C-alpha cells in the first residue's frame, strides 16, 4: 500500500520538485531503529549465532557415527580442563576428540563437554521455540475469541455440551469405554441436531425444553477471562514440576507442559488489542464488505495486534529456556543420556571446586542466550511501540 502511495505522490505534478521525506519501508525503518539500539542489536546477533550453533549441534552430534560424540565415555581422561591435549597413549583411535583437543574440557566420565554443549543447544532451542509456539497459538485463539466474539453469551446447552464431551473423552481415555462413547455420541448428535435446526429447519419457535436450554448465562469474554484467572492461581514452576514429575520423562512432555502453562499473558494482550481494534473503521469496512468473521480476525486484526505478542513471545522463549534448565537441574528434564545445559551443570556441581568449568560453561551459555532473548525482546518493544521510541 505504502509503496504505491509514494509512487502516486511522485507522479502528482503538484508535489514535483518539492522536498519529500525519504522513502522507507516498514522493514527499513525497523532495521534502522534496531541498529540504533545497541543492546537489542547485540541480542539479535547472539540469537542468530545461537540458532546456527543449535542446528550445527543437531547435525554434528546425532546419527550412528556423529562427528562429535557426546556420549563417548573415556574414564582415563576424566575432568580434564578446557583446551587440554588428550593423552594419546591411553586412547583408542576412535576415542580421540575430533578437534584434537578438549575444547571445553571433559566431565567426570571423560565425555567431551564441547560435544555435550552442542547437543544441549538444540534442546534449549527447541524447548524454547515449541513451548512458546504452543503458548502463542493458544493465546491468540483464546484472546481472539474473547476479544472478537466476547459479547456473545454462552448458552446452557453449550456448557452442558462441553461438560458432556470432556467427561466422555476423559472416560474414554480412562477406560470407561461404553459410557464414554455414549456420552460423546450424545454430544455429537446434539451438535448435528443444532446445526440442522439452524440451517435447514424453518421452525421459528422452539419447544419449551429447548428454550430452557438456550437460556444465556455469561458472556464468552467473561468465561475465557475466568479461565485465565484460574490458570493464574497455580504457582507456575511448581505446577510444571509436578506434571513433569508425574509424566514419563521426555523432551516433548516438557515443551507441551511449559506451553500449556504460559499462554495467559498472550491471551490478555491479544484480547486487549482486539477490543480496541474491533471499534476501528477498517473492521467495520471489512464487515460491510461481507468478509467472514474468522478472516477478519486472522487477516485483518491479528496482524495489527502482533506487536505485543511478538515481544512477549521473545521474552517467553527466554523464560522457557530458563525453566527447562531449572527442570534439568533438578533432575526432571530430558532423560539422562541426552545432554542439556541444565543437566551438564547439575552433574558438574559436585566438582565445583575441582572442575569449575563444568559449572561455568553451561551456566554462562544459558545466561548469554537468555540475556540475548531478553535484550532483543525489550528492544523489540521499544521499536514496535512508537510511543516508547524517543525515550532512549
Amino acid at each position, binding site marked *: 500500500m505504502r509503496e504505491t502511495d509514494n509512487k502516486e505522490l511522485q507522479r502528482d505534478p503538484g508535489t514535483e520538485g518539492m522536498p519529500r521525506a525519504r522513502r522507507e519501508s516498514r522493514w527499513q525503518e525497523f532495521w534502522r531503529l534496531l541498529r540504533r539500539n545497541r*543492546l537489542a542489536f547485540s541480542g539479535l546477533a547472539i540469537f542468530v549465532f545461537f540458532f546456527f550453533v543449535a542446528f550445527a549441534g543437531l547435525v554434528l552430534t546425532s546419527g550412528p557415527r556423529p562427528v562429535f560424540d557426546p556420549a563417548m565415555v573415556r574414564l582415563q581422561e576424566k575432568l580434564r580442563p578446557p583446551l587440554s591435549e588428550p593423552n594419546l597413549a591411553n586412547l583408542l583411535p576412535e576415542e580421540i576428540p575430533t578437534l584434537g583437543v578438549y575444547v571445553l574440557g571433559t566431565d567426570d566420565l571423560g565425555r567431551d563437554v564441547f560435544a555435550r554443549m552442542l547437543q544441549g543447544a538444540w534442546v534449549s532451542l527447541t524447548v524454547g521455540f515449541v513451548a512458546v509456539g504452543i503458548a502463542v497459538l493458544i493465546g491468540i485463539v483464546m484472546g481472539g475469541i474473547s476479544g472478537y466474539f466476547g459479547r456473545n453469551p454462552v448458552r446452557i446447552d453449550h456448557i452442558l455440551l462441553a461438560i458432556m464431551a470432556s467427561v466422555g473423552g*476423559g472416560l474414554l481415555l*480412562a477406560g470407561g469405554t461404553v459410557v464414554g462413547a455414549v456420552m460423546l455420541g450424545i454430544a455429537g448428535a446434539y451438535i448435528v441436531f443444532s446445526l440442522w435446526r439452524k440451517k435447514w429447519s424453518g421452525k421459528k419457535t422452539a419447544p419449551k425444553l429447548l428454550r430452557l436450554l438456550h437460556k444465556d448465562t455469561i458472556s464468552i469474554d467473561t468465561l475465557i477471562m*475466568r479461565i485465565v*484467572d*484460574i490458570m*493464574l*492461581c*497455580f*504457582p507456575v*514452576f*511448581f*505446577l510444571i*514440576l*509436578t*506434571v513433569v*514429575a*508425574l*509424566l*514419563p520423562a521426555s523432551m516433548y512432555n516438557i515443551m507441551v507442559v511449559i506451553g500449556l502453562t504460559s499462554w495467559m499473558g498472550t491471551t490478555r494482550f491479544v484480547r486487549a488489542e482486539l477490543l480496541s481494534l474491533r471499534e476501528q473503521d477498517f473492521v467495520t469496512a471489512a464487515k460491510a464488505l461481507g468478509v467472514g468473521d474468522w478472516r477478519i480476525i486472522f487477516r485483518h486484526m491479528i496482524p495489527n495486534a502482533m506487536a505485543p505478542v511478538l515481544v512477549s513471545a521473545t521474552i517467553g522463549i*527466554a523464560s522457557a529456556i*530458563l525453566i527447562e*534448565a*531449572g527442570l534439568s*537441574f*533438578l533432575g526432571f528434564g530430558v532423560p539422562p543420556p541426552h545432554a542439556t545445559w541444565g543437566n551438564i*551443570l*547439575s552433574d558438574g*556441581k559436585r566438582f*565445583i*571446586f575441582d572442575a*569449575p568449568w563444568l*559449572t561455568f560453561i*553451561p*551456566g*554462562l551459555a*544459558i*545466561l548469554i542466550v*537468555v*540475556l540475548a532473548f*531478553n*535484550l532483543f525482546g*525489550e528492544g523489540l518493544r521499544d521499536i514496535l511501540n512508537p510511543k516508547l521510541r524517543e*525515550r*532512549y
Partner: protein
Amino acid sequence: MLSFIGRSIIQKIITLFFVMVLSFLIIHLAPGEPSQVDPLNPKFTPEMVERFRKAFHLDEPLHVQFVYFYRDLFTGKTISWKDNEPVLKKIGERFLNSLPLFMVATILTWTLAFPIGVRSAIARGGAYDRLATFFSYLLYSIPGFFFAYILILLVVNAFHVPVIGMKTFGFTDVSLLRTIMDRVWHLVLPSVLGATVGIAVLSRYVRSQMLEVEDQDYVRTARAKGLPSEQVHYKHALRNALLPFVTMFGLMLPGLIGGSVIIESIFSWPGMGRMAYEAILARDYPIILSINFISAVLVLIGTFISDVLYMVVDPRIRL
C-alpha cells in the same frame, strides 16, 4: 464499594473451586499411582497396597475421593502419605522456616529497587541509567542455580564461612554472637538469590512509572515555577509514581509459599519450596494438593487486597 467486595469474594470462591477441581484432576489422572511407587520393596505386599488404598480412599471413584480429600483438608485432618504426619502441621513448620528468607528477600528487593529505579529515571539515558538497565537484564536472565554456585564459591573462598543449611551442624557451645553471625551468614545467600529477580523487575518497573510521571504537565509546571529539582522529583513526581506499587503489597503474598524450589534445594533450606520438591519426588499427593490449594488461596487474597488498596489509594478508580 461493598457490592464490589461482595461480588469479588463470590467470584474468587468460584475460581478457587475450579482450581481445586483442576489440581485434583491433574494429580489423579496422571499415569502412575502412589500405591505403585515402590513395587520392588518386599515389605510392600499386595495386602499392604490394598490396606493403603483403603485407608486413603483410593479404591473409591474420583469424585468421592475429591470430597473426602477436601473435607479432610478443611477439618485439618489430612495426613501425609509418607510419614502419617498431619499435613497442616508440617506445612506450618516449613512455613516458619521460609518466613525469614521471604522477609529478608522482600526487604532487600524493595529497598534496593526503588533508589535504583528512581535514579535511573531521573538520569535517563545517562551512563548510570544504561548501566542499571544492563545489570537488571543480567540479573533477570541469570539462572538462579548458576548464580547460587557463583555466590557460594565467592563467599566460601573469601570469608571461609559455611553457607549450606540453616545453621552449621554441631555449632552449639559457642558464644551467642557467633551463633547469630552463623545464622546470618546462612540466611544471606539464599535471600540475596531470592531477591535478584525481584530487584531487576521492580527497578525497571519503578523506572518506567517514574518516566511516565515525569512527562506529565504538572511536573513541567512545577519545574517552570522554579522549584528546586529535588522537590520536583521527590515530592511531585515520585509520590504519584508510587501509586501502582501500593497494590504490589497484595501481589507479593503468593511469594510466601511459591518461594523457590531450586534455591531451597541447593542450600538445603528446610522451607516450603523444598518440602514441595520432596513431596513431588515421593508422590505425596496430600502435601502437593495442600500446597497448591494454599498458594491459590494466597493468590486470590493477594489480588483482592491489591484491588481494594488500589481503590482506597486512587480516587479515580471506581469499580
